[in-house]
C-alpha cells in the first residue's frame, strides 16, 4: 500500500501548470479535484497473471476505477 506524496491543492496546481505549458485553453474553466488511492494487488513472480488495480476516492472511500490484468 502506498500513500499520496502531494496534497490535493498541489495536484491541482500541477495539473493547471501542465495544461498551460502544453497550450490547453483553460480560461473560465471550473476546477474540481479529488484525492484518489491506487491500490495494486500483484501476482507473485511464479504466476501468469496480472495486477488487480483499484482506484479509491479518498474522500468517499468508493471505488472509482478498476482494472484486472490476467
Amino acid at each position: 500500500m502506498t500513500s499520496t506524496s502531494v496534497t490535493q491543492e498541489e495536484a491541482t496546481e500541477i495539473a493547471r501548470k501542465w495544461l498551460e505549458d502544453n497550450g490547453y485553453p483553460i480560461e473560465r474553466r471550473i476546477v474540481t479535484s479529488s484525492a484518489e488511492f491506487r491500490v495494486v494487488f500483484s501476482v507473485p513472480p511464479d504466476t501468469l497473471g496480472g495486477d488487480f488495480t483499484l482506484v479509491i476516492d479518498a474522500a468517499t472511500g468508493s471505488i472509482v476505477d478498476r482494472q484486472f490484468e490476467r
Partner: protein
Amino acid sequence: MSREHRQRPTERSRDPDLDRLVKQGGADKHDLTSYLQNTIGNAATSRLFAKLAKEDRGLGGDETASAEGEEEEMEARSRSEPALSVSRQDGEEPAMTRARELHKVLGKGDDVVMPRAEAFAREVLGHKDGEEERSLGRDGDGNLSAPGDGGAAGTLANPPAFPNITTIKAAAPVVTAIEADWTASDSDFNERAAWVMWDSSTSTFSVVGKAMGTWASCTPTPKPADSGTNYHVGHYHIHPQLPPAEQPNTKNWPIKPSGADKSFATSNNSPGFVKDFNTTERKTGDTTYYDYGPSVRA
C-alpha cells in the same frame, strides 16, 4: 559435392531477387523448418536436414577433394534432381531459375515435392546469415549439423539451436493442446498453462506439466528440466472467456499478455504465447495467439 554447393553462403546472400522469391515460396529464413514440416512431414524434414548437414560439413572439409569423386557426386545429383519445368531466361543465374521453379511447384503435393523441397531448402540455407546456421546448429567441431544426424541433437553441455516462438506455436502437438485447453475452459472459465518440450533428435514437440488456475491467473508447474535430447523450449497459457459474473465488466479486463506474463517468460527463459480475444468485447471465436517474452530460448 558440386562447385555450386562449395560456394560460401555469404557470397550468395547479396541476391535480393532470389531472397524475395524464396519468401514468396512460403519459407523465409526464419521458418524454413516449420514450412518443410508442413510440406513434406516431420520425418522427411529430419532426413533432409541430416543430408544437408553432412554436405555442409563437407564444405568446411577437404577443399581439394579429388576431381574424380566430385564428378561422381555431380553425376549422382543430376540423376536425383528432376528436370526443371521453367525455362532459364537470358542472363539468369541457375539459382534464380531453380527458385522460380520451386516457387511454382512447392506446396502442390505432387510426387516430386520431396526433391523440390530439398532444392528449396538449399536455396534458403544458401542464404544463411547466422540465423540459418543457428537453425542447423553446430557440432562439437564447429561444423554445421542438423536435427536427426546426431549433431544438432546436441547434448546438455552443448545444446542445439532451439525453435523460435513462431515454430513453437505452429507445431501440431502444441496447437492441439492449447485448443483442447481452450475448449475445456468453456465450462469452467479457468486459465490453463503448459510447458512445451522439443526433442532435437526428431524435431518433434510435446506438451507437459499442464496446470489450471482461476479465471484471473494461473501458476504453472515447475519448469521441466532438459533431459537427453528433450529440451524445454517455451510455454503457453490461455485467457478464456470471463465467467458470467464478470462479463458485464469485460472492459475492465484488458486483453493480451500482462506485464507479469512477460516477466514470467523472461525470468524463465521461456518463449510464451497466450490465446486471448482480439477485443475486450470477447466475442466467441474472435481470438488470436499473442507472443510474449523471448522469441527463442537462450
